[in-house]
């Protein structure tokens, strides 16, 4: 089982995020981490390969040149290698551009299954996996709470508002992972040490067969028009006393405001 996992390095959500003059997140200002939803996809991929007893997991990312530092964490979790597509002209890419570049990257790789996280914590559009599947011509199976590969096929439980749908597709296919697949593992010391020597292949745009397809900031079809902060929430009071004391404090708090 050869699985490719789409991974995006995103700014660590520590509250220190800043916007650049172009109103986009200043990615150099805060440390990058692996997008949390992508970690669930990676965990699912690692479990599938472990269960199959054979196979390999390849990370595919489109990111700035500093990304290898972040990809090492994904490699420390157990992926065999990473492919990083990085090119100065990709700065300012929107989702359409990202779809085109990742699809072109996938065309250069051999795989049975592609896994992706549901969305990213920075952009949050959630359309890239579907776009990549359509662009490459792969069956698209979204919101998986269970993934069962069989001979040439994959069966997925797709979460729905009323439960789940059982859907099946021929391989290769693209499956969107959800948190229901299980908590991502944390790297072991052996994993961190092994990641030191794992391969991170870097491709520039010249390595992809994009032809005349426009990509990058210059080709963006969307524009950031304005940005505003969400309204600040009122101060939160957290009660941490033991239950016997805390209950009285909560009751007092609510009673003071005539809520009970």
């Amino acid at each position, binding site marked *: 089982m050869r699985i490719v996992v789409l991974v995006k390095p995103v700014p660590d959500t520590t509250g220190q995020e800043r916007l650049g003059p172009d109103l986009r997140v200043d990615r150099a200002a805060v*440390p990058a981490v692996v997008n949390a939803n992508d970690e669930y996809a990676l965990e699912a991929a690692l479990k599938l390969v472990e269960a199959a007893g054979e196979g390999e997991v390849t990370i595919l990312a489109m990111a700035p040149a500093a990304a290898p*530092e972040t990809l*090492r*964490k994904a490699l*420390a979790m157990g992926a065999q290698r990473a492919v990083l597509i990085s090119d100065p002209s990709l700065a300012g890419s929107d989702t359409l551009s990202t779809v085109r570049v990742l699809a072109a990257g996938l065309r250069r790789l051999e795989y049975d299954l592609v896994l992706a996280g549901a969305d990213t914590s920075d952009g949050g559009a959630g359309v890239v996996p579907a776009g990549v599947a359509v662009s490459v011509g792969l069956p698209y199976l979204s919101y998986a709470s269970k993934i069962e590969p069989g001979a040439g096929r994959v069966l997925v439980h797709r979460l729905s508002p009323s439960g789940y749908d059982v859907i099946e597709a021929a391989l290769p296919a693209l499956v969107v992972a959800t948190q229901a697949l299980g908590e991502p593992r*944390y*790297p*072991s*010391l*052996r*994993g*961190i*040490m092994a990641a*030191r020597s794992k391969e991170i292949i870097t491709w520039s745009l010249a390595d992809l067969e994009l032809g005349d397809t426009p990509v990058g900031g210059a080709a963006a079809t969307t524009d950031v028009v304005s940005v505003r902060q969400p309204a600040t929430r009122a101060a939160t*009071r*957290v009660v*941490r*006393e*033991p239950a016997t004391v805390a209950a009285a404090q909560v009751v007092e708090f609510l009673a003071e405001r005539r809520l009970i």
Partner: protein
Amino acid sequence: MDFSRNPESDAIRNAVAQLCAAYPDSYWQQLDVTGAYPSDFVAALTRDGWLSVLIPTEYGGAGLGLAEAGAILEEINRAGGHAAAAHAQMYTMGTLLKHGSEEQKHRYLPAIASGELRLQAFAVTEPDAGSETTRIRTMARRDGDAYRITGQKIFISRAEHSDLMLLLARTTPYDDLEDKTRGLSVFLVDLRTAVEKGQVEIRPIRVMLNHHTTEVFINELEVPTANLVGEEGEGFRHIIDGWNAERILVASEAIGDGRWFTERAARYATERVVFGRPVGANQGVQFPIAQAYADLEAASLLRDKAAWLFDSGRACGPEANMAKLQASRASWAAANACLDAHGGYGFASEYHVERKFRETRLLIAAPVSNNLLLAYLAQHVLHMPRSY
């Protein structure tokens, strides 16, 4: 001077913090109440390879240094845990690694790296010989291909949870020695068989913290000559070689404790409202916490320097001793600031402050008293007269 982030060190700290998150305050509190050993926690650390950090790769370890080992222990204590068990399995093998024969190293180190063999007990102190190691009385007599050892050891941690134990015993009577630092030897003892044969008896001692402390009675213990570690008569020198490393690791544990105290104290002082405002709005509450934080940062820099010196093979005696001294003092100050900020709740066990308070107090007295560190600095760094 380069203080930039090291991604691999960050990865180690994050991974250990994630592992520790599965062992919350309540886990450690329960162990403290029952006096139980953190078996699950140690098994998880072993499974993920964290305890093999200092063992060279040729023997199945990670081959990293004290900087990384210290970061691991610091994160465990920072998360509210107690790193003593981890510390011991990580570091006790150091004497074997540095002074053992190739045969001994190949026989034991891979099994210690994998966790199959637990070497986390080191029997040195005796009822009448604590800091004055050269006064130990436990006697080893050569008898053909073996030594026969008889004596008593006290304050030996984790002997009940260890397969192997390093033992310091006298091979030349004290009065026959011109140089009193000679005449001691280090032995590797298989506790499993020794206890089964009745040659070693381990009795737990209840102390003020959950350290699995014991007394070890040794009666005609037969140890093959093949288990002598290093040279006969050079045992004292062999063990003091490991002391600098131990002090850097203990400093890291103190720094981890101190960070737990300052983080908890700052959070509680911000949330707890008295007389209509957070208690942390009072300078009498917030200044000791801020001072402890600054002291911890200073201790951490000293620890980093000591670890760097050690890992690059340079002499680090003064720095290792000062790191342990400053870190244990800073953590103790942080413990008191945290307890004071919590008021009466700080004494309630469900706030965990009193448990950590007891645990970090030990680090001022052990594994070496801070007074002896000052005596070392005065005599060997400042060249004043010996004071003891």
